[in-house]
């Protein structure tokens, strides 16, 4: 573990130095970066999301006594806005973003909050627990990508688990103790965003250029769109998934 962290630190340091060198030599103005915004909608009615029976663990059942939990494979808002869609630039060729923000994956009331956690490859993220029951985080990456699977229990009050992923991949996450707990780590290269409950998103810090924006949704897979970002301006890319 320590090793991998050292690696990550060393890697980030190298990347930082390289970025700095690049920036200095080309004298690019960082303030010229633009952004991509838009909304993701669902065309048609969302499929019925089954309720989750948590009677196996009385702690979980009690937490949802008044507000039963449902599956979250498709979460559509009132105006058709799709939540939990990850937007990223699929033809990103720039360097990894040295983002200091730490995405947090919370285990709360025996569900994952958020259901989908997007992050940059190499970016450190945190898994925390707010529950008084033991959880177990088990991401299942494809071993071919170079991401190494892990499986770690987190009892109540345990310290956060801090990790990062090497390669871009969509990784399913599950809790071995509570079989209904399913979530996703969406690891991408470059800037990304996740839609909110209205389906809108903003990808910040996009340098000017031509891009392919990809929207990923766990049930409906992906859609792409080409956009051009001008310096300091905002480009728009709206997506509409068709309900099956």
């Amino acid at each position, binding site marked *: 573990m320590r090793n991998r962290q050292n690696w990550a630190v060393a890697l980030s340091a190298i990347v930082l130095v390289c970025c700095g060198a690049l920036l200095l030599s080309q004298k690019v103005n960082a303030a010229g970066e633009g952004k991509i915004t838009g909304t993701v909608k669902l065309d048609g009615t969302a499929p019925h999301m089954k309720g989750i029976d948590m*009677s196996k663990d009385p702690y979980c059942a009690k937490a949802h006594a008044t507000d039963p939990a449902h*599956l979250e494979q498709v979460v559509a808002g009132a105006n058709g806005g799709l939540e939990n869609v990850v937007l990223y630039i699929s033809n990103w060729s720039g360097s990894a973003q040295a983002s200091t923000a730490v995405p947090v994956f919370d285990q709360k009331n025996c569900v994952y909050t958020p259901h989908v956690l997007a992050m940059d490859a190499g970016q450190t993220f945190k898994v925390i627990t707010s529950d008084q029951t033991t959880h177990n985080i088990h991401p299942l990456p494809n071993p071919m990508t170079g991401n190494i699977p892990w499986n770690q*229990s987190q009892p109540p009050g345990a310290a956060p688990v801090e990790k990062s992923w090497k390669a871009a991949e969509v990784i*399913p996450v599950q809790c*071995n*103790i509570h*079989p209904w707990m399913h979530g996703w780590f969406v690891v991408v290269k470059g800037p990304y965003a996740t839609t909110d409950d209205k389906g809108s998103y903003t990808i910040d810090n996009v340098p000017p250029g031509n891009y392919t924006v990809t929207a990923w949704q766990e049930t409906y897979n992906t859609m792409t769109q080409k956009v051009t970002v001008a310096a300091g301006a905002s480009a728009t890319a709206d997506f509409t998934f068709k309900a099956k």
Partner: protein
Amino acid sequence: MGKAFGVVLTIITTISVAIFVSRHWWFPEVASAHGGAMDHQFVETFVGAAIGFILAQLALAVFAWKYGEQKGDNRPIRIFPGGVKWLLVLAFVYVGSEIILLEFVGQKVWAAMYFTPPATDSLQVQVLAGQFAFYFRYPGPDGKFGPIHADKIDEASANFFGIDPSDPASKDDIVTAELAVPVNKPVELLLNSKDMDHGFYLREMRVQQDMLPGMQIPIHFTPTKIGKYDIACNQLCGLGHYNMRAFLEVMSEEDYQKWIVQQASLQ
């Protein structure tokens, strides 16, 4: 030193027997039809074992107390009266009677559970164990279970039994996370496992059975008391083993009918 040993051993024996006899820690109250016979069998075994326990420990304590060597002790050693013969007889009589009593008389309980077929009007429920939860399937009005398709099991979309939606036998099946049965009605459980060896342990019902992948193992019993009981996994199945459990709710007939209708509506 020998006297001290005698005293300590007597104290240990007394406390152990006293705790057993006080029944401070004892089986949970029985809630199934066959459970009483099993408890009876236990008590019989217990009496037999207690006699052996007390006699052996006290004999040891007395001998250690009595036969310690003193300084300048010249008393001759004494051979056990009757030598080996009576000890052999004692061992054969003691163990032999236990075997006859327990093995042949006591087999009835085992036979009742495993050699007799379940009553024809039993409520059949299929149980599927997986890391680390039990799920239950009621056959629905047609009384038929569809097959379990391992490749179709998908917990993320709550298809716990791998039900093929196009299969007519599965269509009306009711899948629940809790086992509910009406009181005083025989129940037959068909135990399946999708991944590991699991155990199905219902203390109050005096029911326990391992669940093996690749096998469907039937067990049957008749609950006699309304209440909510804990179903525990009792065969090491992985990291969440201790947390693998479900609940059995024994309900009145009316409550059960309401419950099953409500569950059907949730499918």
